[in-house]
């Protein structure tokens, strides 16, 4: 197709709008509301052009290019018009930094770098400003109109990003990326005329409005109206580097914004200034918070009889060697974090085998059934295949603040007409798209899944909804089951998983099974591990003298051992007393490999910044300790890299030794009981809980806190932020309470920080009682 732009006749592909066609030819037409990931909007009116045969001045973004079209993009009239429209925009936007020619940088006395009197208070001014580009292109030097400051309050009470709508130009990108692209529809335009503002409807907070905090709105904002809390005053990024997120099994590609030796932010891949992306809150906002966490372990510490003190690395490793010499091999246990790189894991494996000479290797993640879960997960299809599914069934998946690309893929598929069925008690961002939700009664989860299988095998119907679902599964070509790791939080999760495996097999379905660990896949195929329960029992029974924790610390109180070596980037949780605290670098500071989802496609992560001089890489600690002990361990860098780069083996874990889950079946519920769903907190990194290290995550996904629907709270006269007592089977515990609209009424969620479920069975019917305001949590 030929069109003529500014007297140049060019060949373009069909189906393009004039703005894209011009851009392809290197002709820049100023625009603010148009965005490559969004449908044309035509709101800012800056891209108006002249098209022969068309009335008036159509906007390039909303005008389809047609054969023989003659377009002019930079006539005098158009430039005048754009300047006038831009002035109108700037009459509502503080513009000291845009049109003022005075240089005031010498007089900026505050870290804000921008004037308070000009109303730019909350603008990060980090060069990430498309408005500035447009002003420069149109060479605007002054604004003829009076300037209004809207005096809207600055919104800073939601986590992760602040909003100063005084800087907003109403391009609507955030609203559209939230609705069209992320399928969340949290943001909306509110009011009309000059009172128009943006935010969740009915002035709800973002948390209440089910915001996923994916940050797409912040990314696409062409001004400083939306800004990341933790990045805002860090200044403009100097470089961007590719990496992968280590916070769950999806290992999403990200790019880090780097300034100096600091990771100031993490962004989705693509144009760092405007790509909306598919990340979840953790990949988008939490990683830099973790790397830059001020309370990280910074130097080696040793506990002398008289108390803990900082020691040199040489001193620390000498003492460690001494200690290790006194312990017999079989009386040592090693816990390895599922978030480490393959290289770190390989080194730990070699260290355990050749230096500690112990077979007791495990990880906090190796809960009962995990092996079966991961084995099944190996068959996971690539995420993009979800769009071609004929039906999607999710079971025990909690997508809240988790698995962003997965929930997004589900929502997109469902929006395109793929039938979506959700099962389990979790209500998440996908629930709105579900054709049906099956919520099993407590303890009847197995019956639900068994029922599905029986109905499929016999054709006998017991439940209309399930029958409908099974019929689609039977009649269509590519059904997909998405099974969440929440299933392992059940007392009989491993059994249910077996049934599910049969169901998947018989229905010829595909699966997708994520887990919240960045490299568990790698751990289980590289390291010969035992189940956690098995090693835990040895520790409990006093058969272990020395605990060696590599980035892992699944203990809420000191176990009965003689010595604990704690080697991790963060201090141990619960102020656990350890003999050794050996600081290591973490993601962003190390180079290495992650196994990737399903063990296919290893992901390289590069060091983005240099770690502190006072921390030591895991491998180096092992290597130097081995040297000190004069053991012949193959721990050189080359040998470890070779080990880690070998193709991934099948999963290594002998589940025969699995001594049962240790969890009981729940009792039959009484009437008026609430269903308490306990959950191993999926928001972790190495030895730390993200909920405790990120202020934002502490707000959206707090630990040791009862999350319940406001409707239930009303009945109990509970207040958001109040406390309540949960009682079941003789156990009574008091917790703080937060309201969430993204969970189902009647269900209470609890993520115990210890990872231990205080109420045994799970889920469990409980009684709930509001505590008077004064009383503080007792536990």
């Amino acid at each position: 197709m030929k069109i003529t732009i500014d007297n140049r006749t060019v060949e373009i592909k069909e189906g393009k709008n004039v703005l894209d066609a011009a851009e392809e030819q290197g002709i820049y037409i100023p625009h603010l509301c148009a965005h490559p990931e969004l449908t044309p909007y035509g709101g800012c009116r800056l891209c108006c052009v002249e098209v022969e045969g068309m009335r008036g001045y159509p906007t390039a973004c909303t005008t389809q290019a047609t054969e023989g079209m003659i377009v002019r993009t930079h006539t005098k009239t158009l430039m005048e018009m754009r300047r006038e429209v831009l002035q109108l925009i700037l009459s509502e936007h503080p513009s000291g930094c845009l049109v003022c020619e005075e240089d005031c940088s010498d007089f900026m006395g505050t870290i804000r770098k921008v004037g308070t009197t000009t109303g730019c208070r909350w603008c990060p001014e980090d060069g990430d400003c498309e408005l500035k580009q447009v002003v420069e292109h149109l060479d605007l030097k002054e604004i003829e109109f009076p300037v209004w400051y809207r005096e809207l309050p600055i919104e800073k009470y939601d986590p992760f990003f602040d909003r100063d709508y005084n800087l907003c130009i109403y391009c609507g990108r955030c609203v559209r990326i939230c609705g069209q692209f992320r399928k969340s529809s949290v943001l909306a335009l509110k009011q009309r005329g000059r009172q128009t503002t943006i935010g969740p409807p009915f002035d709800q907070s973002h948390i209440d409005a089910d915001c996923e905090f994916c940050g797409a709105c912040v990314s696409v904002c062409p001004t400083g109206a939306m800004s990341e809390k933790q990045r805002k005053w860090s200044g403009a990024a100097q470089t961007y580097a590719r990496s992968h997120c280590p916070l769950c099994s999806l290992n999403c590609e990200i790019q880090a914004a780097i300034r100096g030796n600091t990771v100031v932010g993490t962004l989705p891949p693509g144009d760092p200034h405007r790509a909306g992306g598919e990340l979840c809150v953790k990949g988008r906002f939490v990683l830099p918070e973790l790397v830059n966490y001020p309370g990280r372990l910074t130097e080696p510490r040793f506990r002398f009889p008289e108390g803990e003190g900082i020691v040199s690395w040489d001193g620390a490793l000498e003492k460690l060697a001494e200690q290790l010499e006194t312990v017999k091999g079989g009386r040592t246990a090693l816990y390895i974090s599922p978030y480490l790189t393959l290289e770190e894991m390989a080194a730990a494996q070699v260290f355990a085998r050749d230096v500690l000479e112990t077979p007791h290797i495990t990880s906090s993640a190796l809960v009962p059934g995990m092996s079966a879960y991961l084995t099944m997960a190996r068959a996971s299809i690539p995420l993009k295949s979800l769009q071609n599914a004929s039906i999607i069934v999710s079971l025990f998946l909690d997508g809240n603040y988790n698995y962003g690309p997965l929930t997004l893929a589900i929502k997109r598929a469902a929006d395109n007409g793929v039938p979506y069925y959700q099962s389990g008690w979790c209500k998440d961002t996908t629930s709105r798209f579900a054709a049906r939700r099956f919520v099993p009664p407590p303890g009847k989860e197995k019956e639900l899944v068994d029922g599905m299988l029986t109905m499929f095998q016999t054709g006998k119907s017991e439940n209309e909804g399930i029958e409908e679902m099974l019929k689609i599964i039977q009649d269509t070509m590519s059904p997909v089951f998405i099974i969440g790791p929440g299933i392992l939080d059940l007392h009989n999760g491993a059994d249910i998983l077996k049934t599910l495996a049969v169901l998947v097999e018989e229905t010829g379905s595909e699966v997708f099974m994520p887990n919240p660990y960045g490299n568990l896949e790698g751990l289980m195929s590289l390291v010969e591990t035992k189940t956690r329960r098995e090693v835990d029992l040895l520790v409990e029974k006093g058969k272990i003298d020395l605990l060696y924790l590599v980035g892992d610390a699944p203990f809420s109180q000191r176990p009965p051992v003689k010595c604990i070596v704690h080697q991790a980037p963060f201090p141990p949780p619960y102020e656990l007393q350890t003999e050794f605290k050996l600081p290591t670098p973490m993601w962003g500071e190390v180079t290495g490999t992650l196994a990737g989802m399903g063990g296919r496609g290893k992901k390289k992560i590069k060091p983005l910044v240099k770690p502190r001089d006072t921390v030591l890489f895991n491998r180096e600690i092992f290597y130097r300790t081995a040297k000190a002990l004069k053991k012949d361990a193959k721990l050189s860098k080359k040998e470890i890299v070779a080990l880690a780069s070998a193709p991934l083996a099948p999963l290594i874990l002998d589940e025969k030794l699995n001594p049962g889950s240790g969890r009981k079946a729940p009792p039959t519920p009484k009437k008026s009981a609430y269903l308490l769903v306990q959950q191993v907190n999926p928001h972790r990194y190495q030895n730390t809980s993200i909920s405790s290290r990120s202020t934002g995550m502490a707000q959206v996904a707090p630990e040791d806190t009862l999350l319940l629907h406001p409707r239930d709270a009303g009945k109990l006269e509970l207040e958001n932020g109040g406390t309540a007592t949960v009682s079941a089977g003789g156990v009574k515990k008091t917790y703080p309470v937060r309201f969430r609209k993204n969970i189902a009424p009647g269900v209470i969620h609890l993520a115990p920080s210890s990872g231990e479920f205080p109420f045994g069975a799970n889920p469990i019917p409980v009684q709930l009682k509001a505590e008077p305001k004064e009383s503080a949590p007792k536990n």
Partner: protein
Amino acid sequence: MNKLDELIKESKLRWETLHNPDTPVIYLGTASCGLAAGAKEVKAAIEETLEEHKLTARFIEVGCIGPCYLEPLMDVMVPGKPRISYGNVDPRWARRIIEGCLVKGEVVKNKALGYLGEPPAEEIDGIAPFFDLPMLKNQTRVVLKNCGFIDPEDLGHYLALDGYMGFYKALEMPPEEVIQQVSDAGLRGRGGAGFPTGFKWQVARESRAGEKYIVCNADEGDPGAFMNRSLLEGDPHAMLEGMLIAAYAVGAQHGYIYIRAEYPLAVKRLGIAIGQLKENGLLGENILGSGFSFDIKIKEGAGAFVCGEETSLIHSIEGKRGMPRTKPPFPAGSGLHGKPTIINNVETLATVPQVLLNGPGWYRQFGVEGNFGTKTFSLVGKIRRTGLIEVPLGISLREIIFDIGGGTQKPFKAVQTGGPSGGCIPADLLDTPVTYESLAAAGSIMGSGGLIVMDDDTCVVDVARYFLDFIQKESCGKCTPCRVGTRHMVELLEGICKGNGDISSLGKLESLAKTIKSTSLCGLGQTAPNPVLTTLRYFRGEYVEHVNQKYCPALVCRSLIEYYVEPGKCTGCQRCVNICPTQAISGPRSEPHNLDPEKCVKCRACYEICRFDAIAGNAIYIKSREEA
């Protein structure tokens, strides 16, 4: 069709009996306009009187017949006498009229306006036909023919007056011929833009899409316009019949009536009417055995002016925020849920049955070449006879304002047509014929039919400010020029009204107006500057007086005027003292009062009461600041 034929037969019989009754029949106009004028109290008085005198009479509530200045209107028909209409009836008069007509058997001449229907066998002294009233004489009633005449909640009344006969006829033709007839009649969209209705239908007809929609746009939002409301309240079936015909013609299966929630009575009556249609097989599956199926839903809008714009309206029905999008694609090709959608105004649809019933030739007898047919207007403002009128197109503004409306009290200044998107037309253009093209040439638009008449007491700057402020508040906020530009225009106009403007303000207004007109996204923004542009074009002198002399010739702009009491004329009656909200006027009884300009908020209350109260002496004056 048998069931309906029977119903029609029965309806005609009922209608006959109603007009040759054996008991008296009382009609009361209880459309919103009547209710606002006090029809509810009148109704209570009627019921009370009937009860008191143990009288039996049929009581029928009808819609609005047009002359607002005569509301509440009440008709009484006693056996053997014609249906006589009484105007400006209050509860006291209602009692007297009932007693006079039903007890004494006479005509209460003081309030009688004329008779409706057939002339009486013997002439009644002083009672002329109702439609000979000066306001009604020059009107042509096509769309409003049933309004105020029939019971809008009784399908039988509508059927008895050839209701649904147009639809009957349409069903006997192929859809293409229906469209041809509408095209031949030269019917143009009555929502304001005047797009040929037949052509629009043709586009949707030709689309191969399986699903199509008909939407009736009843989101009447112009200040001072109430044509659609009156029509829907007085004769909902007329519009519904038009919708059925339109649906049949374009092959639509679903219909929506997008109506403002602020029209509760119209919503209620539409609901009743739709129920009646469903009951009688005129709506639903396989209508009248023709194989044509159609259903109608009412969608209440939350009252955003911009939702009168087609694409915003579509978004609103879809449950989205009412914001426009760029056209093309036009709704006739891709509208509601991406399907071909015909959006017609209430009046357009209500006209269609008449075209089908009487043929395009009959319809073309009204109006002028290119602008055939009639148009309803709501005549409001500083005019003697306000109300809802219907006139043939091509009639001059002068005829409307002076012959039908009875002219103005003070010298006529301008008439605003087309609401906030329209413009002000001055006295020397009064002979402009009312056609789409000539109004556009005068800088205004036909619009949906609001005519706001202004006299010398109206300040054009203030009027322009008012309309711009309205637009600015109703802007959806999507596009920059409309959201921000109109606000700048309002600020400039407010400045001028406050005496802060200078001559450069006028230039700024004009340049802003140009930008807004050429860069706005939808019709709302593109036409928003019209009130300013037309007033600047025809009344530039008044603007200049405002900015240069700080003088408001109409004595409206508060910052430019002062109130004072003429001591020689003041009777000291204290009426103004009592009414003043800020105690700015003081003085003992029977002595000239004092007005403290410091306290005065220029609310005009004292001025009005001094002019019109019998014992006051018309002693309060408004002067410009210069004079003061």
